[in-house]
């Protein structure tokens, strides 16, 4: 037994192994990101031409693009975001300004956090059950409702967080000037927190723009260009899903191009949101 040097050596070895492991773990994550981005670029760029933005999804073997899917996704996301921003900001405001430490507030806050990470496919089932089945038809509107239900908890959470960061003195100053509570919130608190709230909305948009599962049986898909949200509506995620699993090369090519479009959108929005979040009135 080497009592004097043994422990020191073993400590040094475990330290070394540990540090190397941490480096490797980080390297694995960075490499995974790089590999995914590289695949998207190398596979997606070939399919990316003007047709993508000018033509609708083709029959196998013929030329086409993703115009109907892009438009459908944009419409559904826009409707969903409008609804989610209204509900989310009001609910977040209630949690931050009115509920504070009340029991009901705690329940809502907790359930909102659960809803935030609940499996999105269950939201799709729910919307199918309340909208698609009773109205006897898939629709872009149902898809938008499903997306809104996924976005709203994100916005609620971030709104509450940024509103809570606003100093009490700000509220008191407004009230001291004679502003009623609602004016204080609308014109002072919301205004002071607007960068943070915008971040929340952008993150919610990033989240829903790539969501596929809740659209599978709400918006379904549509081979043709349609601006009617009461009918089944084409959307990028479901088109990618169907085309990627098809046996046709040109469909797969379109799927990769679509995947690249979605990933580029989501990642850009995420980065913009993070930059906004670093502004002084968030921290």
């Amino acid at each position, binding site marked *: 037994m080497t009592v004097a040097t043994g422990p020191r050596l073993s400590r040094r070895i475990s330290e070394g192994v540990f540090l190397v492991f*941490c480096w490797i773990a980080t390297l694995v994550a960075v490499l995974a990101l790089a590999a995914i981005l590289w695949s998207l670029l190398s596979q997606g760029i070939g399919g990316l031409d003007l047709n993508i933005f000018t033509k609708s999804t083709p029959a196998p073997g013929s030329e086409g693009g993703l115009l109907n899917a892009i438009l459908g996704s944009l419409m559904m996301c826009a409707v969903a975001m409008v609804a989610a921003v209204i509900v989310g900001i009001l609910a977040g405001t209630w949690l931050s300004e009115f509920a504070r430490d009340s029991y009901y507030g705690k329940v809502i806050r907790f359930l909102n956090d659960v*809803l935030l*990470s609940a499996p999105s496919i269950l939201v799709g089932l729910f919307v199918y059950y309340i909208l698609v089945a009773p109205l006897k038809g898939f629709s872009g509107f149902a898809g938008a409702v499903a997306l809104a239900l996924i976005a709203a908890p994100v916005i609620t959470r971030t709104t509450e967080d940024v509103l809570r960061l606003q100093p009490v003195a700000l509220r008191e100053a407004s009230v001291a000037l004679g502003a009623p509570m609602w004016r204080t919130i609308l014109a002072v608190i919301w205004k002071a927190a607007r960068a943070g709230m915008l971040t929340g909305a952008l993150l919610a948009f990033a989240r829903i723009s790539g969501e596929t599962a809740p659209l599978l049986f709400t918006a379904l898909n549509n081979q043709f260009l349609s601006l009617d949200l009461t009918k089944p509506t084409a959307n990028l995620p479901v088109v990618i899903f169907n085309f990627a699993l098809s046996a046709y090369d040109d469909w797969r090519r379109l799927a990769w191009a679509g995947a690249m479009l979605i*990933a580029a959108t989501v990642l850009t929005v995420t980065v913009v949101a993070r930059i906004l979040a670093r502004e002084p009135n968030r921290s």
Partner: protein
Amino acid sequence: MTTAADVSAADVPTPPRIARGTGLDRAFEILCFSAATFLLTALGGIVISLAIGGWPAFEAFGFGFFTSSNWDPVQEIYGAAGAVTGTLVTATLALLFALPLAFGIAIFLVELCPPILRRTIGTAVELLAGIPSIVYGMWGLFVFAPWFAKHVQMPIMMSVEPGSFWEKITAGVPNGAGILSASIILAIMILPFIAATTRELLLTIPPQVRESAYGLGSTTFEVITKVSLPYIRTGAIGAVMLGLGRALGETMAVTFIIGNSHGFPTSIFASGSTIASTIANEFAEATDRLHSASLIALGLVLFVITFAVLALARLLIGRQVHA
């Protein structure tokens, strides 16, 4: 002089409430209250609709719905055991892979990372979390699976002894799709979530605590395992549960790569299914009543499992950390 009243006031950080007005103030509060209640109703609605919609399946198969793995739309026999097992196995394996890596990343970012790289690597991890599920699915199927089949599956299946236990659990078609591949993709997907939450937890540790451990001559390894991790234990378990919750409910990536076969998964290379992938694959085409009811019942099972996991996670993490 500090009085008892001062101390208790200082203990409670809640800011003083501003007096409530009338009229428009009240209307605005009710408006906000309704929005919050709407979220509660939505969650309640999900549970209730899944329970009502799935009821015919529970009624037809009783407890056998959970014990049978026979899923046969032609004969209208539905048992959830295969999908439930697939869900639990893939999520658990994913967690096993992701956990050490995620902790490694979090520790790297807090303790080891050169400041110049910190923001870049932090952003990279965040972007990994932002990549949509369907992109993971495509990448998994078209890029990862062929590589995995050639460089991992084939060598392993060649080298295991015929007839041994190892041969049994690595049996399957070496096409890269299956339980293990799905678990690895899931692990990459939940990695950034666990890493980000753990990182925030590590940052909540007062510097004095860590510095005193370093001051006593501890190595980084000792500070992390004996001081930092015990300090954030509860929250870290919560972060892990949050990752587990995501892995359980993840749909598209798994649907792409798990191979989609019903029944019990028998080996790590065999194809299987999860609750979410079964619903995603079959629900739009389920025409008869019992088939769609069984799928909705599966959804209810998934909801109950994830709700339990997520609720526990939230209670453990608390509110001080963004997750």
